[in-house]
């Protein structure tokens, strides 16, 4: 119908993370059908759309560890009215940030040259590979973030409550039980 209200557009992406937050989003199970009644997905790993268009809500999992992460994050910030940092990697750097006190070259050598199980040892140097940063940065240190949803990953119920509040135009409230950094 011509006068039908357009659906809320949501984009999601995973930067330096493990996709656990996306998996937790899928863990809302049958409520995915309710979600699809309310929203339309733009760029996400579910749609395989390569670039983010204008969206109401952008959800970012993972920290910023290389130039490609920074480009994607900048695109999200420019296109999404509301940007949500989801999970510990996006909020603190989390496990990927454990490399922040190791020299990057030492780190590469340890991973690609010294490990006894690696065959044909060489440090990857393809021009298509994004340039790694010296550190892994939480996304709020790179762009402005509107909301933070903690957890590694946040539980599916917390994601559901958070998302439905945002979609319905309410201020998301994270109760004591839902606020967990682990």
């Amino acid at each position: 119908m011509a006068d039908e209200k357009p659906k809320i557009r949501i984009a999601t992406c995973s930067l330096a993370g493990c996709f656990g937050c996306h998996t937790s989003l899928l863990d809302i199970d049958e409520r995915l059908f309710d979600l699809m009644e309310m929203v339309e997905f733009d760029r996400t790993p579910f749609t395989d759309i390569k670039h983010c268009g204008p969206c109401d809500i952008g959800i970012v999992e993972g920290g910023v560890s290389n130039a490609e992460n920074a480009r994607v994050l900048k695109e999200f910030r420019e296109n999404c009215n509301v940007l949500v940092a989801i999970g510990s990697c996006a909020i603190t750097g989390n496990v990927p940030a454990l490399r922040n006190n190791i020299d990057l070259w030492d780190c590469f050598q340890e991973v690609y040259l010294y490990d006894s199980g690696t065959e044909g040892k060489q440090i990857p140097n393809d021009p298509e590979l994004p340039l790694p940063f010296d550190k892994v940065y939480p996304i709020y240190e790179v762009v402005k973030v509107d909301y933070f949803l903690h957890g590694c990953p946040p539980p599916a119920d917390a994601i559901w409550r958070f998302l439905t509040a945002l979609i319905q135009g309410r201020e998301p409230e994270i109760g004591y039980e839902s606020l967990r950094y682990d």
Partner: protein
Amino acid sequence: MTSTITIDGKTVPFTEGQTIMDAALAAKVYIPHLCHDPEFKPHGSCKLCVVEANGRNVTSCTMPASPDMVVINDTPELNEDRRALVQMLFVEGNHICPACEATGNCQLQAAGYYLRMQSPHFMHFYPPRRVDASHPDIFLDLNRCILCELCVRASRDIDKKNVFGISGRGIDSHLAVNSESGRLGDTDMAVTDKAAHVCPTGAILIKRKGYTVPIGQRIFDQKTLREFHLEQQKRVESEDGPDGG
């Protein structure tokens, strides 16, 4: 002789020598804190327990209560300051909660929950910190140390060993181990020492004990920091007797 102070309008009795914190905890009035433990001499370093007493901001764990003192504690402004302090403690160390064995048992983490810390707010320092696995039974990870000095006080006052101290100044302050090599394995610290069990974060861990209590059943999965600290006070009072020993 018993006198009274008021905390947030509530009349709270105190006896000579008690601090604002002592009187508050005895009356089950909660003032958030991290470096205070009723078993040890107050230290006043974490500043979470700062309250307004007769118009001045003071650390309630070190400020003696005095007759008719008017204390303001639980206000949005003071809790906002406390939240900022917890945020600073998080970014000044390397607190990777999902990778930490102490998660769920960590008082810093619980303070974040209690004070509704939704974001780290400040830029992360990611400071380079030392890890010491030299002791056969105790693991020391300075990435998580918040310089509360509970281990320093426990080792000095209870264990009588002086295993720990604080060295350096300002941002370079760090926990130092009192042995020639600077390694924990070269001290006489024992796993049964009080100092091995007072760390409010995961900086001092007992080896081979990780995950014996599953995540979800740990202290702060079950209770708030407020409940934990009030129970801690009650336990110390019952051990020391009604007059506090």
